[in-house]
C-alpha cells in the first residue's frame, strides 16, 4: 500500500555578470560579480509563470482536501534572498508561510547556497551553509527541518554520515538501479552502518511528470491525472517518492501544456483510490527501514550518469572547484561574514554547470537552462575563473592587511609582555634584595 511522498525543490541562482578584466572596480563585491538586473528579470519571469500560480494552486489543494493532501519542499537561500527583494517574491513567501501554517507543508534543509560544499574534503564549510539554511527557514516559516536534501540529491556514504552527525532524521537521494540492485525505491532505507533514514526518488514516475509530461513522442502522452493516479495505485511498496523541481509547473512545462490542470486534479484523482494517501517526508520516514544502502561514490539525480559529472566532469570544472577549495581556506582565516557570503554565492553549483562539455546530447539540456545565451562552456569558464581569481586577489589583500594588523598587535603585546616580565623580574629581584 504505497503512500505518495511529494517533494519539490525551489531554486534560483544569483547569476554572474559578464566580467571584464578592463573596468573600474566597484567596492560592493556583490554588485561587482553578480548581474542583479538579469537575476531580477529571471526571478520575476519565473514568479509569474511558475512560483506564484503553482503555490496558490497548492494552497487551494491543501485547503480543499482538508488535510488529506500534503507535500514537502526545500527552498535555497539564494532563492529566498532574491524573493525578499521584490514584491512578487514577498508574496511568494507569504503564500509559503500560509502553507506552512496549515501543517501540510514540510520544509527540508539543504545548503543555503545550493553549493557543492559537501564534496570538499573539509566538511566544516558544508556544515556552516546547512546551518545558515536552517536559520532562514526557522526565521521565515517557523519550522526546524528534520530531513535533509543535498544539492542535486548528491549522496554518498560519507555525506550521509556527516548529515546524520548533524542530527537529521532522514535524507533524500536518487533511486537508480546501479545503486539499488534488486532493491525497490519504494521502501525506506538506512545509510550504511547508520541510523539515517534514506528516501529514494522513484525516477520513472517522477520523470513522467517532471520530464515527459509535455513530450509528444512519449507513448503515454498526454498524461492525465486519473491515468497517473491509477499507475501510482498499482505500484508495489510502502511509498512512491515523487521528487522534482518546483519549476516543473509552468517553467519546464508551460501553462498551455495543461500542467496546472494536471496538478489541480492530481490529489482528488489519487484520493479516489483507497490505498493512496499523501505523506510529508517526516511522516514517510516513520515507516520501517527495509535495508541499508551502500553508496561509496557520489550519486545525484542529474543526467543519464546520475553522478557529479555535470559539475565536475571536465578539467575546466575541476580547476574551478579546486580554486573554490583554495579560497575556502583563505576565507576561514579572514573570518569576515560579508566576504564569506560573497564567496558562498560564488559556490552555487549552477556556475559550474554552465561549464559542462559532456556529450553534446546532454549538453543541449545544459544549454537550455543557460542564461548566458551565446556563451560556450569555454566562455563561461573564463568568466567564472576571472571572477574567482579577482575575488582571491581581493581576499589576499584583505588577509595582508589583517596579517599586518595582527603582527602589529602581536608585537605590541610582546612589547608589553616583555616589559611586564622585565618589570616583574626586576621587581622580584628588588624584592629579593630587600629580603
Amino acid at each position, binding site marked *: 500500500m504505497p503512500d505518495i511522498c511529494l517533494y519539490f525543490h525551489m531554486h534560483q541562482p544569483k547569476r554572474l555578470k559578464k566580467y571584464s578584466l*578592463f573596468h573600474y572596480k566597484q567596492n560592493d563585491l556583490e554588485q561587482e560579480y553578480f548581474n542583479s538586473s538579469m537575476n531580477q528579470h529571471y526571478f520575476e519571469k519565473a514568479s509569474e509563470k511558475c512560483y506564484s500560480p503553482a503555490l496558490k494552486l497548492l494552497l487551494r489543494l491543501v485547503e480543499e482536501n482538508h488535510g488529506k493532501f500534503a507535500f514537502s519542499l526545500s527552498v535555497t537561500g539564494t532563492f529566498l534572498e532574491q524573493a525578499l527583494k521584490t514584491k512578487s517574491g514577498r508574496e511568494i513567501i507569504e503564500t509559503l508561510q500560509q502553507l506552512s501554517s496549515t501543517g501540510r507543508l514540510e520544509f527540508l534543509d539543504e545548503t543555503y547556497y545550493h553549493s557543492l560544499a559537501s564534496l570538499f574534503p573539509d566538511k566544516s564549510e558544508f556544515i556552516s551553509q546547512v546551518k545558515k539554511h536552517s536559520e532562514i527557514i526557522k526565521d521565515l516559516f517557523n519550522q526546524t527541518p528534520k530531513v535533509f536534501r543535498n544539492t542535486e540529491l548528491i549522496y554518498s556514504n560519507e555525506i550521509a554520515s556527516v548529515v546524520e552527525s548533524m542530527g537529521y532524521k532522514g535524507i533524500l537521494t536518487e533511486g537508480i538501479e546501479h545503486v539499488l540492485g534488486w532493491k525497490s525505491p519504494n521502501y525506506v532505507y538506512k545509510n550504511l552502518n547508520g541510523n539515517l533514514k534514506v528516501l529514494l526518488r522513484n525516477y520513472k514516475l517522477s520523470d513522467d511528470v517532471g520530464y515527459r509530461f509535455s513530450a509528444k513522442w512519449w507513448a503515454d502522452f498526454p498524461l492525465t491525472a486519473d491515468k497517473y493516479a491509477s499507475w501510482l495505485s498499482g505500484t508495489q511498496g510502502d511509498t512512491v517518492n515523487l521528487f522534482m523541481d518546483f519549476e516543473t509547473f509552468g517553467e519546464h512545462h508551460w501553462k498551455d501544456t495543461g500542467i496546472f490542470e494536471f496538478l489541480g486534479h492530481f490529489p482528488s484523482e489519487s484520493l479516489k483510490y483507497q490505498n493512496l494517501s499523501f505523506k510529508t517526508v517526516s511522516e514517510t520516514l516513520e515507516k520501517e527501514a527495509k535495508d541499508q544502502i551502500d553508496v561509496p561514490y557520489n550519486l545525484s539525480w542529474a543526467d543519464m550518469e546520475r553522478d557529479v559529472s555535470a559539475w565536475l566532469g*571536465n578539467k575546466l570544472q*575541476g*580547476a574551478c572547484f579546486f580554486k573554490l577549495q583554495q579560497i575556502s581556506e583563505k576565507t576561514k582565516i579572514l573570518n569576515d561574514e560579508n566576504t564569506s557570503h560573497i564567496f558562498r554565492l560564488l559556490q552555487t553549483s549552477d556556475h559550474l554547470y554552465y561549464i559542462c562539455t559532456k556529450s553534446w546530447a546532454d549538453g543541449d539540456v545544459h544549454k537550455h537552462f543557460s542564461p548566458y545565451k551565446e556563451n560556450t562552456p569555454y566562455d563561461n*569558464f573564463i568568466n567564472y575563473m576571472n571572477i574567482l581569481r579577482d575575488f582571491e586577489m581581493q581576499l589576499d589583500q584583505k588577509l595582508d592587511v589583517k596579517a599586518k594588523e595582527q603582527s602589529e598587535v602581536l608585537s605590541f603585546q610582546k612589547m608589553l609582555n616583555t616589559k611586564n616580565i622585565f618589570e616583574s623580574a626586576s621587581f622580584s629581584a628588588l624584592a629579593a634584595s630587600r629580603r
Partner: protein
Amino acid sequence: MALKIAMLGWEFPPFISGGLGVHCFELTKALGERGVLVDFYMPKSQIVPDSPHPNVKIIPVDYSSFEGEIDLHDAEFGPYYKFLKTIAQTTQSDQNSREFVETESESYGLNFFEAVGRYNFLVAKLVEIMHKKRHYDLIHAHDWITAKAGISASKKIRKKLIFTFHSTEFDRTANLSPFDWILAIESEAAKNAAHIIAVSNMTRMHVSEKFQVSPNKISVVYNGVDMSKFKSNAKKEHFGISGSVVLFHGRLSIQKGPDYFLRAAKRVLQLKPDVRFIISGKGDMLPQLLSDAISLGIMDKVTFTGYVSNEHLPYLYSIADVYVLPSVSEPFGLTVLEAMINGVPAIVSKSSGVSEIINHCLRVDFWDVDEMASKILAVLKYTELKEMLSDGAKSEASYFSWKKTADETLLVYNKNMS
C-alpha cells in the same frame, strides 16, 4: 562516363595569395582521385604549376595558349586560329601582359583589372575551343575574378555554370567601399549560375541577401585542411623563443582586421608584459600597422614577419600559444583549421564562416578589443583551458578534409547533370 569539368581559377600553388588557390589545388586533386576529369584554367606565368593528379590538366592561359603547347593548330580550330592570332599580336606588345599573375592580386592597380578582363576574355574563348575536343559536362568558376568567363563560356557551350563564392566584394572591403562594378559581376554570376557553392552558411546568406538569389540555389561546402602539409612538431626552443606567443597570420588588409589584433595586444601587455605578438603576412596595411605599433608603444613586443610561405607556416603554428583570427568579414577562415590541427587554441571572429562550425574555439566580436584581450589572457593563464581547447581543436579539425569537400562538390555536380 567520367564527368568532365572545365574549372576556371585564378591562382594555384606555388602562386598563392589566399584560400582560393589552396582550395582549387586540393579540390581538383581530390576530384581527380574520384575519377573526375578536370581542366583547370589559370593565368599563365613563367612556371607552370604541377598537376596534382593525372586526371587534372592545368591549362595556363594567355595569348600563346592558342598555339603550340596545347595543340590548337588543328584544322577544326581553323576559324578561330586567325582570330586568336590577332589577339596575340595586340597583346604581345603589351609589356604588362606577362606580369599580371606576378602582380599581387590585393594591389587593385589598373593593370590588375586589365589583366583580369583580358584573362576572362581569353578563357571564355579557349573553353569554347577546347569543348569541341573535351566535351565538358559543366563549367565551374571560382569568385568574381573568373565570373565573366564562366558566364560567357557557359552560354557559348550551353553547359551549366557552377559558381563558388570564396568571398564577396563586401567581405574583401570590410563592407566599407565595395566596387560597384565588381558587385555587378558577382550579382551576374549569382543569377547566371545553375547552382552556387558558398564556403560557409554566413556567405550563403550574404549571397542570397545581397544578390537576391534563393538560398535553395546555394549549397554550403566547407573547406578542408591537409594535415600533412600544416602539421609541425617544431618547438619554441628550436627558434630560441621563450615566453608566450600570440599569432596573427593573413593578408594585412582591412578585411582581416590586423589593426584590432594590435589593439588587443596593447591591452594584453598592460596586464601581462611577457607576451610576444607575431603578425605574419603582407599587405597594404603594413605601414599603418607599423606606425600603430609604435604609437601604442608596443613595437618591441610585436614581430612583423612579412610574407611567410606555406612551407614555413607550420613553424609559426608550432610556436604559437594562441591563434587569433580577428577578421571583419571572413567567409571561411582556413588558417583557423591549420592552427587547430597543430593544437593551437584559436580565438575566432564571430564574423567568420569557420566560427559557425567549430565548437572548440573562443569566439569574439572583432571590434571588442577588450574581450579579445581577455580571451588571449585566459588561454595564456589557465592551463586547463589551453589543454582542453588544444585537445578539442585537434580532434575537431581532423573531421575536415578536402576529400569531404570534393565529395560535397561532386554531389552538386551530379545534381546539376540531369
